[in-house]
């Protein structure tokens, strides 16, 4: 059993937002001689923390490559996205939500497809590289979340209560999931922006191998307050040091699938945040209503 030590670790940004993550190969994959097909990247760029996870479909011959490309292009695109918003003076929730749903969704899917063709050649079949995608970006102003396919995003507040800001996609059932490799995949990518919570918050992102290791959502969601308490006691770096053991234990005793877990810890705000929460449209409705238009990368000066 091996983990991805390259992804392990935690660092603090000036706002003390911190991120960490880890992945392990599934117990079933070890038995079957298959590679780990989950991937994960944690990036700190100034005061921006990005975590991206991807789960390559076992039915795809290059699933591990598809997952790796997904997290690589996503992290790069999201760092650029926040940078562009800031250069335009639009690093607010409303702009992030608007630009996040369009054109970011299209850009991410397109960037992944282009990366696949760079690796696999112009004739590469996207279906051979299929993968899900989950990400979170935390800045001092906002939290931007995105999900395409199965897996879980949990928010844990200071009281230990768990919420799911992006509801489970009903298209995910059994082993079937929406994928980056499908036509119009961007319509399945749900993006949500919200103000950075004032209160202490832990964001957990995981591939489906974690959630499927419990008898119910309720049993799974108990990881939320447990990880939060552990972060308080050990710090995020201390928790990260245990993720290899935790995730290995979970895949052996649970689903047997690969597991990737990303964490972003948001400490309490030192002073009241002045920006009032904005009314955010339902991300699913936004996704369904938006036309599939060709877009250029978000540039300074582009109107929302």
């Amino acid at each position: 059993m091996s983990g991805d030590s390259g992804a392990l670790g935690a660092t603090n940004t000036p706002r003390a937002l911190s991120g960490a993550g880890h992945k392990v190969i599934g117990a079933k994959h070890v038995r079957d001689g298959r590679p780990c097909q989950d991937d994960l990247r944690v990036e700190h760029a100034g005061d921006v923390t990005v975590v991206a996870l991807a789960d390559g479909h076992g039915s795809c011959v290059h699933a591990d490559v598809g997952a790796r490309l997904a997290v690589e292009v996503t992290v790069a695109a999201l760092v650029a996205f926040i940078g562009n918003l800031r250069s335009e003076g639009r690093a607010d929730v409303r702009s992030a939500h608007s630009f996040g749903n369009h054109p970011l969704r299209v850009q991410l899917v397109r960037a992944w497809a282009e990366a696949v063709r760079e690796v696999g050649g112009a004739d590469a079949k996207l279906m051979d590289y299929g993968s899900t995608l989950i990400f979170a970006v935390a800045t001092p102003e906002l939290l931007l979340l995105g999900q395409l396919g199965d897996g879980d995003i949990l928010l844990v507040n200071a009281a230990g209560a768990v919420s799911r800001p992006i509801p489970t996609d009903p298209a995910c059932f059994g082993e079937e999931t929406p994928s980056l490799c499908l036509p119009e995949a961007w319509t399945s990518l749900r993006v949500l922006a919200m103000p950075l919570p004032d209160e202490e918050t832990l964001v957990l992102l995981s591939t489906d191998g974690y959630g499927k290791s419990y008898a119910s959502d309720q049993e799974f969601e108990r990881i939320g307050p447990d990880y939060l308490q552990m972060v308080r006691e050990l710090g995020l770096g201390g928790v990260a040091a245990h993720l290899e053991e935790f995730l290995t234990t979970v895949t052996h005793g649970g689903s047997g699938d690969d597991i990737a877990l990303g964490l972003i810890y948001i400490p309490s705000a030192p002073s009241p945040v002045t920006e009032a929460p904005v009314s955010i449209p339902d991300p699913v409705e936004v996704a369904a209503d938006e036309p599939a238009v060709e877009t250029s990368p978000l540039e300074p000066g582009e109107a929302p």
Partner: protein
Amino acid sequence: MPKLPGGPLATRPLHFIFIADCSGSMAGDKIQALNHAIREAIPHMRDVARGNPNAEVLVRSVKFSAGAQWHQSQATNVEAFEWKDLSAGGMTDMGQALTLVAGTLKTPPMPERALPPVLVLVSDGEPTDDFDSGLRTLLAEPWGKKAVRLAIAIGEGARLDVLQRFIGHNELQPLQANNAEQLVRFIRWASTAVLQAASAPASQTQAAPAGVNVPLPPPPVAAPTDPNDVW
């Protein structure tokens, strides 16, 4: 290591259901052969289950003749499962059997995190009730639709077109068992190769071929039939 976060870990349940025709035409050699074939397959199912400890294989069975009933209603871990012999007599109320199975595939109690159920339908004849209604009820359940559905035709009198509709796609045809040896072989394949595939399914996109919920290994080729050993 600190306490593991979260509730207790759980392997994923895999429900395996035999749906057996016990109509009058099955009486005699056919029902005896079916009992023997399933009984013979159980130890091999246990071997497959032990090879994948992340799946909990739960077995039960439905019988149909005049109406349909659970023959073994409790979903039982294959390690503890013992086959109880069936007896035959009556009609072929296959539709009611599918309705009965549909009831147990509802979510809840069937969890969404379960592995795809495996349904093995064995029949030698033509439905005498509303098969279409039963099939519709089964396929209306998400797990009915996502189940791995296999059909074994016993003898020449089975309605292959009906069994094909139960399977729901053309990637797999009903397995035609014309004698006891072939039946053993097909039941063994369903109980081992198919069970193994269903207990470790690869995640897939929504673009997978319609109805093919789990890619299956090819079924065994039926040995040449001895004209003196045919039902």
